């Protein structure tokens, strides 16, 4: 980046050797040079410092070495610094020849002139409060620098290019042709158009896309198995915040510490999920302590990149090499986040839980949920109100039950029949065999070399057993392959210790060899080759106590066995299901005097659950419960930031997580930065950090943000590296302008839309982006902004643009992430668990790419090809590469082929004449009319393709069938296919994916 300062020098007329009397700037020229060539050994890092010499601080630079001044103002020959860089002895000369650094003659000369001019010292531009007051005239700043460099700025661009530029920059979408016409006819003023764009919900989508890169938002956890998690409500919060123009200071505080605000709203708690967007691991065998430190470091890197524009992450293992961040600063920053409830290693990747999680219910949803909860309580009351009729019916019900229990017939009640049917979870292999039936009922076949079983657990329809009941299960043993042992197991109150066995003992469950409820031998194996009913007395298995039975297992050792219906034979079938505890059932049958009050209430509940007198109320209750549960289930559960007692934070020497020898540190902001009203009397919190971040004390947050917005609108920041405002990041080309804008931004209430509006309404923004030979030669990096920038669109907008110009784009805002087309098998490298990308049906295929499911280890390949980041780390400035993969995506990705076909349909349906079709095609995609030679070229392609598709109508139909959206009926397939190729052509041009 030192090239930059040199380049600016070179722009001064009469470049080459700078004139003797040109004033040297310490901050702009000298410090960057010292930082780049000297600080590695003579900078902030105490452990790497050589000869005790420190050049990054004023004291060191103007101190002495062996009694000689390091820098003697006015006297280079008496300055150690100058002596050493000019020493004739190569062994003495700095930088050492063994290092990779050296100084050019011009650089040595620069240092000499600086010392001769009195060695004026300035602080680093970014570490004191930005200066400026009043309204900022952006154009005046830019024009002054251009004039000084004698560069002629470009003329204003044409209206169509400007409209296209504004649409891309502010909404990430191509220009709306209707708006363009109104602008051209003078019915809409440019200011009005800008306001309209800023008011569009697509503005929020565009800004959110940028913000998500910074906070490294993704739908998966990142490490190893890269499991899915739910954080999209955070993305929607960002979207809403930008669209509602939430002031950036509030936007900051709510993300860093929304959960700590008094009476935090749901939105603030959702915002605070920012703190948990770092990558986490589920990998078994990982060390929780190590990963907690990885997460802590990740947060420091991310926070400092976004809000300090600084590379504090470098100070994890050693003091920063170039900027005054110490290792202590690094760990003190990480201590702010030590209150976040989390674990180092998450378990159970199947459950995909990254606790703590929270249910997201915004006030409107919460109000609906509360209303439904109240309705549910009311319905419950209605269903349980007693009156005389009901009491009479209750007495009759009991008498009838008692009569049957004493004298009635025993009947078989099925628990498992032609299906499991009890609502429990199936486990093991339930292999239904339709070819082998007992009577009409199909059966399950089970076979194995050793112990094999199938079972279910957690039944809703539980089994209440009592005295005199008989459990049964039908089996038929294959005579060719008999088992050595059969076992029935029953589950209640969380245990399977209720077993009956025939034959054996071979199955290694329960107390083998004993005769106890946990393993009750029932004698020999039953005869083979016929249906046999295995029977067990539930009392002998201890099933008449506790809760009803909620699971049953069918186990065998070896052999091949068909298992048929299972259940209970009882005199009181009415009492078997419905959840009555066995003791209450016994009490009921024992008569009124034998019940305690709890049992009496259980019996009343049992009666109310089945009496026809309350059928209507019960139905209403069911509906109320279903409504409540459905809404509740529809509300997302997302990863949440929950504050707990903070973990102890230590400095980790050399970043080694196993080294506990470093001092314990308390939360603190970097020591060399102004501390402002930072609390000292108590432990500081994330909320204190958040408030300091957007306070006047912090010189960096507003500069970093304004610089990023500038980059979005002009292609490059005023400070070239938006993620590094430190000594190595390059001084801004227009530091006063950046400062003035930052001051104005803060004074105006951190108003993001106002900032963007005032920037796009400048002459500088509205200039032509065409490169002239003079500009290419004099300012190839466009640092002085004599022209606007041209750059390739971001990945998302490349696809969104194709969808929008074809008319395919779905307008829905927010919601769970979606899955558009992705090549088959792209996720094959994932495991724990194995996953497959299933493309959505319907509108999920055509949503804005902002909503595409973001998998960190396998980011959507079409987005990745256009430099979308994996969102593992903060990215302020994406690469803008130019690769063959991009060509392959635009040519062959079904998203683009489908968009081309739909675009062709629209064009063909609207215009009959070929020339007008071409014109419409260009207008939709490029916001301009085609030139004559372009019309000719497109028509030539159409003619060739049409001829070819007439000869091969199957190929035409195949091309038109790409994509899920409906192909238009009617027009000649060859014609539509040819125009689809024309649409592909226009979508493939550089111009289509370039903002200019």
């Amino acid at each position, binding site marked *: *980046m030192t090239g930059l300062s*040199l*380049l600016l020098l*070179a722009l001064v007329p009469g470049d080459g050797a700078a004139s003797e009397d040109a004033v040297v700037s310490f901050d702009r020229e000298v410090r960057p040079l010292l930082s780049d060539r000297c600080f590695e050994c003579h900078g902030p890092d105490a452990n790497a410092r050589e000869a005790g010499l420190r050049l990054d601080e004023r004291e060191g630079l103007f101190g002495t070495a062996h009694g000689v001044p390091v820098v003697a103002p006015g006297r280079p020959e008496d300055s150690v610094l100058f002596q050493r860089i000019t020493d004739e002895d190569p062994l003495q000369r700095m930088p050492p020849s063994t290092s*990779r650094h050296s100084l050019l003659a011009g650089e040595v000369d620069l240092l000499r002139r600086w010392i001769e001019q009195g060695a004026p010292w300035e602080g680093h531009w970014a570490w004191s409060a930005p200066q400026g007051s009043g309204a900022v005239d952006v154009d005046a700043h830019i024009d002054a620098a251009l004039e000084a460099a004698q560069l002629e700025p470009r003329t204003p661009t044409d209206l169509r290019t400007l409209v296209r530029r504004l649409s891309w920059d502010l909404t990430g979408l191509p220009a709306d042709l209707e708006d363009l016409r109104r602008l051209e006819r003078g019915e809409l003023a440019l200011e009005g158009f800008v306001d309209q764009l800023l008011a569009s919900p697509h503005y929020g989508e565009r800004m959110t896309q940028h913000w998500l890169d910074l906070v490294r938002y993704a739908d998966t956890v*990142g*490490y190893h*198995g*890269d499991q899915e998690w739910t954080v999209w409500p955070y993305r929607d919060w960002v979207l809403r915040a930008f669209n509602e123009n939430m002031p950036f200071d509030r936007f900051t505080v709510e993300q860093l510490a929304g959960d700590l605000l008094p009476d935090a709203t749901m939105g603030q708690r959702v915002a605070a999920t920012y703190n948990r967007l770092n990558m986490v*691991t589920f990998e*078994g*065998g*990982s*060390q929780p302590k190590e990963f907690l430190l990885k997460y802590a470091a990740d947060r420091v890197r991310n926070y400092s990149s976004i809000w300090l524009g600084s590379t504090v992450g470098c100070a994890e293992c050693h003091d920063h090499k170039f900027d005054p961040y110490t290792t202590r600063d690094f760990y003190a920053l990480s201590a702010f986040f030590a209150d976040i409830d989390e674990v180092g290693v998450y378990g159970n990747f199947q459950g995909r839980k990254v606790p703590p999680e929270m249910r997201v219910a915004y006030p409107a949803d919460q109000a609906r949920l509360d209303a439904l909860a109240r309705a549910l309580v009311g319905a419950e009351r209605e269903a349980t109100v007693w009156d005389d009729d009901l009491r009479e019916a209750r007495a009759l019900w009991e008498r009838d039950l008692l009569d049957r229990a004493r004298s009635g017939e025993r009947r078989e009640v099925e628990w498992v029949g032609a299906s499991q049917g009890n609502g429990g979870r199936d486990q093991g292999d339930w292999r239904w065999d339709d070819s082998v039936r007992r009577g009409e009922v199909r059966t399950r076949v089970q076979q194995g070399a050793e112990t094999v079983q199938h079972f279910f657990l957690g039944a809703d329809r539980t089994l209440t057993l009592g005295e005199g009941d008989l459990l049964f299960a039908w089996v038929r043993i294959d005579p060719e392959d008999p088992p050595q042992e059969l076992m029935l197991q029953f589950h209640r109150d969380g245990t399977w210790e209720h077993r009956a066995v025939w034959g054996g003992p071979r199955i290694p469950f329960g107390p083998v060899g004993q005769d106890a409820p946990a393993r009750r031998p029932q004698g020999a194996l039953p005869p083979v080759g016929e249906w046999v009913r295995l029977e067990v007395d539930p009392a002998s298995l201890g099933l008449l106590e506790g809760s009803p039975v909620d699971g049953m297992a069918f186990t065998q050792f070896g052999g091949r066995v068909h298992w048929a219906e299972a259940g209970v034979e009882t005199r009181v079938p009415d009492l078997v299901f419905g959840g009555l505890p066995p003791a209450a059932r016994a009490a009921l049958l024992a008569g009124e005097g034998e019940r305690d009050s709890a049992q009496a209430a259980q019996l009343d509940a049992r009666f109310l659950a089945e009496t026809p007198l309350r059928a209507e109320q019960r139905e209403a209750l069911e509906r109320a419960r279903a409504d409540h549960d459905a809404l509740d289930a529809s509300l997302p559960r997302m990863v949440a930031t929950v504050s707990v007692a903070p973990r102890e934070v230590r400095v980790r020497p050399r970043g080694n997580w*196993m080294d506990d020898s470093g001092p314990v540190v308390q939360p603190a902001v970097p020591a060399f930065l102004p501390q402002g009203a930072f609390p000292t009397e108590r432990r500081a919190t994330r909320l204190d950090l958040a408030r300091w971040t957007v306070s006047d004390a912090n010189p960096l947050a507003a500069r970093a943000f304004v610089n990023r917005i500038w980059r979005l609108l002009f292609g490059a920041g005023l400070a070239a*590296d938006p*993620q*590094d405002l430190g000594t*190595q990041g390059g001084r801004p080309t227009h530091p006063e302008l950046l400062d003035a804008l930052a001051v104005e931004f803060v004074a105006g209430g951190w108003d993001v839309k106002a900032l963007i509006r005032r920037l796009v309404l400048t002459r500088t923004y509205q200039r032509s982006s*065409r*490169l002239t030979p003079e500009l*290419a030669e004099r300012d*190839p*990096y466009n640092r002085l902004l004599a022209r606007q920038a*041209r750059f390739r669109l971001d990945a998302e907008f490349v696809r969104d643009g194709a969808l929008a110009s074809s008319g395919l784009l779905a307008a829905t805002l927010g919601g769970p992430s979606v899955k558009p087309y992705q*090549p*088959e*098998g792209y996720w094959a*490298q994932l*495991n724990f668990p194995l996953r497959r990308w299933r493309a959505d049906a319907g509108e999920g295929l055509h949503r804005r790419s902002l909503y595409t499911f973001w998998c*960190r*280890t396998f980011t959507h*390949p079409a987005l990745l090809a256009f430099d979308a980041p*994996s969102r*593992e*780390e903060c990215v302020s400035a994406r*690469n803008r590469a*130019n690769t*063959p*993969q*991009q*060509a*392959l995506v635009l*040519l*062959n*990705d079904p998203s683009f082929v489908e968009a081309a076909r739909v675009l062709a349909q629209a064009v063909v349906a609207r215009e009959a004449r070929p020339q007008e079709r071409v014109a419409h095609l260009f207008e939709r995609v490029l916001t301009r009319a085609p*030139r004559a030679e372009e019309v000719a*070229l497109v028509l030539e*392609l159409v003619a060739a393709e049409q001829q070819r598709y007439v000869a091969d109508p199957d*190929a035409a139909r*195949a*091309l038109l*069938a790409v994509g899920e959206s409906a192909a238009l009926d009617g027009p000649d397939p060859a014609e539509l296919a040819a125009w689809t*190729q024309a649409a592909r*052509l226009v979508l*493939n*041009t*550089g*111009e289509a994916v*370039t903002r200019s």
Partner: protein
Amino acid sequence: MSQQVLFTRRGLLGYAGGGLLAGAMASLLGRDALARGGGAALGSRLHHSPRVRRVIHLCMAGGPSHLETLDEKPELARRDGEPMPESFTRGQQLAQLQGQALRCFAPQHPFQTFGASGQRISALFPSIGAHADRLCIVRSMTTDQINHDPAHTLMNTGSGLSGRPSMGSWTTWGLGSETQDLPGYVVLTSIGRGGQMQPIAARQWSAGFLPGRHQGVHLRSSGDPVLYARPPAGSSLEDQRRLVDATAALDRAEATRTGDPELATRIAQYEMAFRMQTSVPELMDLGDESRETLELYGTEGADGSYAANCLLARRLAERGVRFIQLYHRGWDHHGGIKRSMEITAREVDQATGALLTDLARRGLLEDTLVIWGGEFGRTPMAQGNGRDHHIKGFSLWLAGGGIDGGTSYGGTDELGYAAVDRPVHVNDLHATLLHLLGLDHERLLFRFQGRDYRLTDVAGRVVRPWLA
């Protein structure tokens, strides 16, 4: 930034016609930006004369046990079942074995002498053993990361943190490409049946902050080999040709109007993309391979197996691909290592040996570096009847151009726990790899966020004894 610098510079030359200005720019851009032509040019940052032109990295993902592959430990066998002496393990990092009783676990397979050099290698690897006189076996590797994901990241990028460029990207950035038809850095993956399949993140072949064209391209075994390289249904190669030609014509006109140098690059990239639509299917079609060759590798075709991938690796090498990486994902043997090792060795041994044979007989081995190894090793202590992750000592081998074959280097203690004889860190491996390619790891630098980054981070030294 550097990307922009290069392109802008090209545009600049386009206008200024080189000369004075080019000289000025070259000095401005300094050591990071040597002249490079259009997208297809063979840019190069060579520091010294290279010993090899390409690398084939056979990555045994999951972490092969050194104790059942390359590092014979009779003392460990003698102490089978005894407590692991605490002097070895105190204060050391463990993965899944933390907090458990640590017992010695004997090597589960015998070793055997191979070649005139008498190298000792597990008897499970007869085909690799047949090349013993070509191998430099390193028995003193160490790494810093004990979990798969960060350990792979370190093995590929020199750092456990995400976001740095992988060694393949550094290599193509440093040396450019020798092929106009295929990407310079290609990755193939295969699964195994003898262990849990390791997830392999695409970040392992990411270009990080280097220009995107240096990203590794995953050559897939199912679906289309290269993503999006198949023309859509109903659009033939002739249709695609017409489309690419027309796109280039429109882009050229736009370049003239706007002076945007990106468009010239773009036209070249479209040409490359078009060629890939034919070169990739041609690459994947093994129909021109002899029966003998297929049998040598033990494959019938491009079926995604490791064997097929080895054959593809040779075809890629022949076609000028600079960096070829094969992942076999089945080496994470926490349990049942005896049986799993047999299965995995069978999946890997024959084809690996065949690859060396085939490269050698075609004259390719002399300018290819082949590296075989995983992201770490496994504990001498038992984890049930398997072994846990281990970072203090593990093994790998190198073969090919510039490598002193038939030699061993370094060693672990008598129980195979720690590398005690001449330990080698992953950064040293990278330094040596770059050295063989003609690159100085301390001078192959890329400026990002104010810092000069390199593949070897802040460490690394060339291991001279490995070199012939």
